[in-house]
């Protein structure tokens, strides 16, 4: 189910044409979307989710495989090709994980979902810090477990080719693995984020400004190194967090980062 999406530019908040007037994204690509609060990141996501046809506030137009989506692609929730994951999404049903996944599989028209459920559980457990069990109740899962299960479900049962992620940071999951899982399954991933490490997980990033797509940057080799360093910083912060949780004192030593070592 390979797809491309094309975003044809519209207008920024002052009504001027946005600097990027056309952008094509292919299966397996990860794009991050960055910019200040209010710069239009969520609006861009929403335009893609709705497959805007010059009928939203930005007047953008979205093409799927080079064409305007037909009515059912755009509106029929049952054939919807976009899945959405955002910061404030939660599970609300008081139901066991496995029972729920069965139910979800059923409404996606999947007859024998047992092996698929096994796959979801496996993915969820490679992403989450704490194990997720089949008989855990959805509403009692921690933030990290929920997020991991949602991503695993989106990757397998929902099986939408386009995945939009809005500010899912600090969720206590292995974000690198999550991105690899999604991109590896040939998904198009668009990721809104303020976190530099997540921003660098994109092959390219869209810089938003004043409601418009202002620039497209491609990840440079220099940035790949920077990513490596950032990962080191993050690790230090996690170490500090753990020490403090365990009731230990922090030393400056713990937080010094030796650059040469990690740069090889």
């Amino acid at each position, binding site marked *: 189910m390979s797809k491309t999406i094309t975003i044809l530019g519209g207008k920024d908040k002052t009504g001027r044409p946005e600097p990027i007037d056309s952008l094509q994204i292919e299966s397996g690509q990860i794009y991050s979307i960055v910019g200040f609060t209010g710069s239009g990141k*969520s609006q861009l996501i*929403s335009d893609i*989710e*709705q497959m*805007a046809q010059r*009928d*939203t506030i930005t007047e953008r137009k979205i093409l799927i495989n080079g064409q305007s989506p037909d009515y059912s692609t755009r*509106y029929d*929730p*049952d054939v919807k090709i976009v*899945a*959405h*994951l*955002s910061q*404030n*999404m*939660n*599970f*609300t*049903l008081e139901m066991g994980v496995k029972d*729920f*996944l069965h*139910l*979800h599989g059923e*409404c*996606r028209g999947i007859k024998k979902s047992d092996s698929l459920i096994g796959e979801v559980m496996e993915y969820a457990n490679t992403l989450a810090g704490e194990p997720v069990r089949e008989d855990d109740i959805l509403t009692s899962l921690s933030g990290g477990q*929920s997020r991991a299960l*949602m991503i695993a*479900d*989106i990757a397998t*049962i*929902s099986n939408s080719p386009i995945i939009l992620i809005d500010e899912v940071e600090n969720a206590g999951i292995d974000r690198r693995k999550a991105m690899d899982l999604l991109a590896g399954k040939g998904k198009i991933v668009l990721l809104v984020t303020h976190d530099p490490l997540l921003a660098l997980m994109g092959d390219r990033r869209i810089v938003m400004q004043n409601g418009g797509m202002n620039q497209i940057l491609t990840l440079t080799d220099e940035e790949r190194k920077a990513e490596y360093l950032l990962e080191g910083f993050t690790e230090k912060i996690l170490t500090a967090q753990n020490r403090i949780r365990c009731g230990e004192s922090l030393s400056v030593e713990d937080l010094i980062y030796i650059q040469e070592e990690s740069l090889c």
Partner: protein
Amino acid sequence: MRKPKVIIVAGPPACGKTSVMIHSIKCLQRLGIKTAVSKIDCLATEDDQRYAGIDVPVIVGLSGDICPDHYFVVNLEEMITWAGGEDADLLIVETAGLCHRCAPGIDKALSVCVIDSHSSIKIPEKVGPVLTTADIVIIVKGDSISQAEREVFRSRIRRINPNADIVEANGITGAGSEHVAKLLLDRKDATDLIGARLRHPMPTAVCSYCMGEMRVGTKFQQGAVYKMDFPCGKGGGERLCQKQ
């Protein structure tokens, strides 16, 4: 005089009907469509001010002691005349719908049900005929629920109302309102509702308390009085005991 197309918007109290309608009306305004709104509630409402804030002619009906859905049907003809006088293309009637027993829908008029995915996700069936008889079902507040649960929720709604258009909309950001506006324009065009029929009968209101009785106790009750069933010998169980 103009005959506006009538759209009836119902759904559980405080589920977000007004917010989603305001966004959709703004889309209609961009398309040059003129909308008038009639808001039916029981005791008080401030929604009229929210509608007036986007420059829509609005009228309020407060039903007081009477069921708001009864009150709505009784006044429908006059509301249409009023909206025609306001030169409106569309008349949106937003009604309170409280007990879920009935639905204000009318066969020839477009019927919209707004439901809150948080409060309805477990048992959409509980929303009752207002959901099962709707032409358009708008799901709101879905943005904080997992994708998977939203899919399950939609498929349950699909099962109990196979023919409705189901839309997800966000009353805060307005996402989805373009689609709602398009459906409001495209679906069904009723110009004359006199003689049209309700989609679902309204509850009968003929017990003593409907007529103003204040005293509690069986001996004060007349008319259509329905008693609950209790296990034999407990509560008012005589009826069940006689059956056995």
